[in-house]
């Protein structure tokens, strides 16, 4: 750990904040581009940069949400419910200052959560076998499919595509070529980072191409003093912070559920629990900005806990971070806490520095970011397109990665336009080999399908995961049913 690494974290935070603030550039896309850039870097430097960009991106989404009512990230949607009305009242600086300080508090809470729960969960996860790994991977993919936009069945179809993408190339056990059709460029399979850049990055270029909406912001320059924490506002909001941070971390812990769901749930709970808010919710209540923002940032700790201890991403951005680990030779999972404990501690330090840096960069750089929001479409879209191309090319200096990236971008555009969510496809691409290798190991070790199925219900940890699996689907069905009933 040295000054150069702190510099990398700082640069990562700045890039993440800017890209998280720009509508259309999601945290996930930011992470995809950042990860592709770090290919070939020393591992510690790459991790510092990636963690900085992640933390910055999560915090940056709320800036566009408050000033433009266009959330920079899905997790910032709930922040805009009261953030934008505050802007319309001429109190954007108060909204921004609240968002910044509670993001810092939420981020620190998430780090504490990761440090405390991560080690406990890591010890427990050492008892996992092939059955448990398989169930966790399938649970993660199906949960993302179920919770994504669009209907559940389309989410599962999207996940099936991701599983197929994983199968292209050499079979891991027998060495037989699958789905290559004699094309040499496919013998190594698809580079999953190129696929992600296409599905998240280039897809967005296609989607935004026809969007004539200009980013009209009425934001003025803010004095830094006005962005400092307001004691009176924090006094009003502190009770809602008490439950919002744990809600964010626990929801972030669930495979496939991340900051966006944590922020919405926290907003909903706060709306129910706070009887005398500073203003009615939806009209500029400070509690309505504080609660989702702290949950959103606390979810980072939860998502990373699941990632490090179980090797299952908590949400789409952490799925990209998982790919970054693979790229740099680290394998998150139960053995990570034992074999790579020093990296876990290093990442905790990077997160701590990143969260604090993001607060100060946000404080000092809000005006610069607001200026960037005024950049015209004809600048931003070509910039993103070229970044995607260079990002894909930089992976292996292979022009075919770029070609596949563009093709997947078009596939992503068609899928999204037809209501098929993209996130399950990407998650399945990353987790597909874990699913396949483990189920085939279970089949080979047990010697038959019947014996394999029996092994899932005779192992205690497997039964717990199965119950959680079934329970999460039942909860989803119940909430869907009660929504229909209310309508």
């Amino acid at each position, binding site marked *: 750990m040295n000054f150069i690494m702190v510099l990398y974290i700082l640069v990562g935070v700045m890039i993440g904040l800017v890209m998280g603030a720009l509508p259309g550039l999601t945290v996930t896309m930011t992470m995809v581009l950042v990860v592709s850039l770090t290919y070939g870097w020393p591992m510690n430097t790459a991790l510092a940069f990636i963690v900085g960009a992640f933390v910055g991106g999560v915090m940056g989404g709320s800036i566009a949400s408050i000033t433009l009512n266009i959330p920079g990230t899905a997790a910032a949607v709930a922040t805009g419910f009261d953030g934008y009305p505050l802007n319309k009242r001429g109190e954007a600086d108060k909204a921004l200052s609240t968002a910044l300080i509670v993001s810092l508090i939420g981020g620190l809470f998430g780090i504490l959560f990761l440090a405390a729960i991560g080690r406990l969960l890591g010890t427990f996860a050492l008892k996992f076998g092939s059955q448990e790994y398989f169930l966790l991977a399938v649970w993660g993919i199906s949960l993302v499919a179920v919770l994504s936009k669009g209907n559940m069945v389309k989410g*599962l179809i999207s996940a099936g595509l991701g*599983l*197929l993408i994983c199968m292209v190339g050499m079979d891991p056990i027998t060495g037989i070529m*699958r789905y290559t059709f004699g094309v040499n460029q496919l013998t190594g399979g698809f580079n999953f980072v190129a696929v992600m850049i296409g599905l998240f990055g280039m897809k967005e270029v296609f989607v935004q191409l026809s969007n004539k909406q200009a980013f009209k912001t009425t934001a003025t320059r803010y004095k830094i003093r006005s962005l400092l924490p307001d004691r009176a506002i924090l006094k009003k909001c502190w009770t809602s912070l008490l439950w919002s941070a744990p809600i964010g971390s626990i929801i972030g812990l669930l495979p496939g559920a991340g900051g966006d769901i944590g922020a919405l749930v926290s907003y909903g709970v706060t709306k129910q629990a706070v009887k005398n808010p500073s203003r009615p919710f939806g009209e500029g209540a400070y509690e309505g900005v504080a609660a989702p923002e702290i949950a959103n940032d606390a979810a980072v700790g939860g998502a990373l806990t699941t990632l490090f201890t179980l090797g299952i991403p908590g949400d789409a951005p952490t799925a990209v971070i998982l790919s970054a680990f693979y790229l740099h030779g680290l394998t998150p999972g139960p053995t990570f806490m034992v074999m790579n404990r020093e990296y876990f501690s290093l990442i905790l330090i990077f997160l701590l520095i990143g969260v604090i840096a993001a607060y100060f960069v946000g404080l000092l750089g809000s005006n610069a970011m607001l200026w960037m929001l005024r950049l015209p479409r004809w600048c931003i879209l070509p910039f993103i*397109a070229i970044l995607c191309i260079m990002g894909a090319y*930089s992976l292996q200096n292979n022009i075919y990665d770029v070609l596949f990236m563009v093709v997947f971008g078009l596939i992503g*555009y068609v899928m999204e336009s037809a209501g098929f969510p993209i996130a399950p496809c990407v998650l399945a691409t990353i987790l597909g080999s874990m699913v396949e290798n483990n189920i085939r190991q279970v*089949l080979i070790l047990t010697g*038959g399908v019947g014996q394999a199925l029996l092994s899932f219900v005779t192992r205690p940890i497997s039964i717990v995961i199965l119950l959680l699996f079934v329970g999460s689907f039942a909860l989803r069905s119940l909430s869907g049913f009660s929504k229909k009933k209310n309508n």
Partner: protein
Amino acid sequence: MHEKKILSVISYVFFIAITAVIFMDIFRIVRERHLDFFAINSPTVYAALVGGMMTICLIVSLTLEFKGGKADRDADYTDKEDQKGSQRSLKVLLLFAALLIYIFLMREFGFLLITPLFLFVFMFILCDAASLLKRLLQSVGGALAMTFILYFVFSEIFAVLLP
């Protein structure tokens, strides 16, 4: 037909083709290698499971689409919306074709020569400046500046070997 409907049809055709390809390759492997399809250590079992899941989901999804299709048919799509949708899809297809040409030319002629041209065309089409001269100047300036900044950042700072 409404643009969304067309894209929905295309996506379903794509997924049905993907599922067919899964099973076709399974049969190819079983035939060529004389493998037992139902053997526990066969490389086709997992692929068959994925293919089976896709088949069931596609049948369910198509059934739901068909049931919801009547509501869509009754929906009041205006000619203007149809036209907008067609224009949108055309823009996407044109950009896709342009990107493929750009990738091919970049491989042949290099990043520094082709990227400014591509960016100039892209920016010129997107730019909404009032006068033609302003559009030209903004596109040329933007293309050159972006190319050289990105080249410098990727080549010199990130040490990425560009074509």
